[in-house]
């Protein structure tokens, strides 16, 4: 049974529909990702689920509750980390956690949360002295201090350096292991791919696709690319003659051969026949990033000069 059910959610600001008929379900215990470009309506969607926004139309059920009507019960059972929300500069980490713990009927042990999130020894540190990663981990701790069944995390790792981001990812995996359902808003595909069981891609207020990361990649075609430098020149026409190959591009001295099916075997056999060695060979598959760009219609940025033949 889904713990979050959203049907036909619509919300407009100043006549512009920011969320335009979004529907999705989140299953108990999963990490559900919401990805999309800036202004796609991700934050408005989760803030409606949290009861911070009154939708114009549509229905939302969270643990069977109406977020606007059953606020008290909902806030006891759903923890949130908000985008661009911070604490008082002079508050100490331990004070903030103790304070937030006092709001809930069944608070978690905040000392244990500190340890779990790698903030042990920071209880006496003031908020302003924390690094960006520590502030975000504290935000996670505050979202979990009420022992919620659902944690909603909005742009948790934006602005963090890669190392801090990875350590926050481990924390999110721990949350899932503890049995908490997680809704994760992000615009990092690597993050969504690594953490999410299912991903909803949102663009201009509408759902473009909802699927597993692998399912999303599959939707945009299972194209593979071989990138290599041939030891002796080889005619493009010989490669495009192979049924598996769809295109050949040149990038400096490298060839990029794209296609489907058993393209790796087909191309390497041809090269072996012609006694051509494929130097610096790399095989690239479509990533979630490619799938996301294809689904949202955003332009991919090419690296370096490439000339299309064919």
């Amino acid at each position, binding site marked *: 049974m889904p713990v979050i059910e959203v049907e036909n959610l619509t919300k407009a600001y100043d006549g512009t529909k920011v969320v335009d008929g979004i529907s999705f379900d989140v299953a108990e215990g999963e990490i559900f990702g919401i990805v999309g470009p800036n202004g796609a309506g991700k934050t408005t969607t989760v803030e409606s689920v949290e009861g*911070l926004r009154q939708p114009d139309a549509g229905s939302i059920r969270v643990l069977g509750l109406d977020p606007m009507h059953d606020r008290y019960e909902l806030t006891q059972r759903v923890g949130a980390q908000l985008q661009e929300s911070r604490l008082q500069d002079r508050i100490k980490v331990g004070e903030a956690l103790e304070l937030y713990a006092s*709001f809930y009927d069944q608070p978690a042990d905040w000392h244990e949360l500190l340890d779990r999130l790698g903030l042990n020894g920071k209880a006496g540190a003031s908020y302003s002295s924390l690094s960006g990663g520590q502030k975000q981990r504290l935000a996670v701790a505050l979202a979990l201090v009420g022992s919620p069944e659902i944690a909603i995390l909005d742009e948790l790792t934006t602005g963090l350096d890669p190392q801090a981001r990875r350590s926050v990812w481990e924390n999110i995996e721990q949350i899932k292991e503890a049995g908490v359902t997680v809704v994760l808003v992000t615009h990092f595909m690597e993050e969504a791919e690594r953490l999410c069981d299912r991903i909803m891609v949102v663009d201009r207020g509408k759902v473009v696709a909802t699927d597993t990361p692998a399912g999303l990649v599959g939707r945009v075609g299972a194209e593979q690319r071989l990138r290599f430098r041939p030891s002796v020149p080889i005619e493009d026409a010989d490669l495009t003659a192979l049924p598996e190959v769809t295109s050949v591009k040149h990038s400096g001295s490298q060839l990029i051969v794209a296609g489907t099916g058993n393209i790796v075997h087909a191309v390497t056999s041809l090269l072996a026949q012609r006694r051509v060695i494929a130097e610096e060979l790399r095989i690239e598959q479509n990533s979630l990033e490619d799938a996301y760009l294809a689904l949202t219609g955003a332009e991919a940025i090419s690296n370096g000069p490439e000339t299309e033949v064919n």
Partner: protein
Amino acid sequence: MSATMKLTRTEGRLFARDPIALFFGLVFPGILLIALGYLFPGFDEPSADLDGKRYIDVYGPIVLVLGLATLGLVTLPPILATYRQFGILRRLRTTPVHPARLLWAQLAVHGVVAIVAAAFAVGGAVLAFDVPVPERPIWFVLSFLLAAASIFSIGLLVGALARTTTAGQAIGMGVYFPMLFLAGVWVPRVIMPDALLTVSDLTPLGSAVQALEDSWFGITPSAMNLAVMVVWAVIVGLLAVRVFRWE
């Protein structure tokens, strides 16, 4: 301990960690009064300008109101604006505790600081300059509470309207200095021209100074002064509640 008590305790600690707010809110009124008394020649002698009162007598109520105005108009609005700007109020809305309780906690902290600051100033004046202990104590306390309510209501309204910390400081200061002038900080009310005195009477700070001075020296405060403070507290307070935004 209840969530409201915890919030109040936490906000109290945060206030105590701000040395500037602590100095100007807590000890400045008393220090100012004592410094004026010692530094200005004739400050503690009867003056014909003041209908035979001493400057120290007249300035007692003025520094009490100055202390309230500093807390209500200088300290409080930027805190409220910051809490909105930082998303602290919005974050509270996702918890079982309504953010209004944070406002009550702030008002409670400012109220306690105001009372301690007033006790320090009154005590200093009584001990150092033989100013009488307030002669109508119940009216005196009532006047002080009404003054606090009306001034903090204005601070709440400024905090409701200001979107950023800086705006909260700027608007607060913009209200603070004219109000202090009308309260008689630079020109005591007894020597104000009649027209100015009428304007002063209509402001909560001017009426507060008069009501505190009267009750301090054995006169029942005028109904007009008390009513001015009640009207400001109620109207501005309701307006602040109406326009207040949590985000």
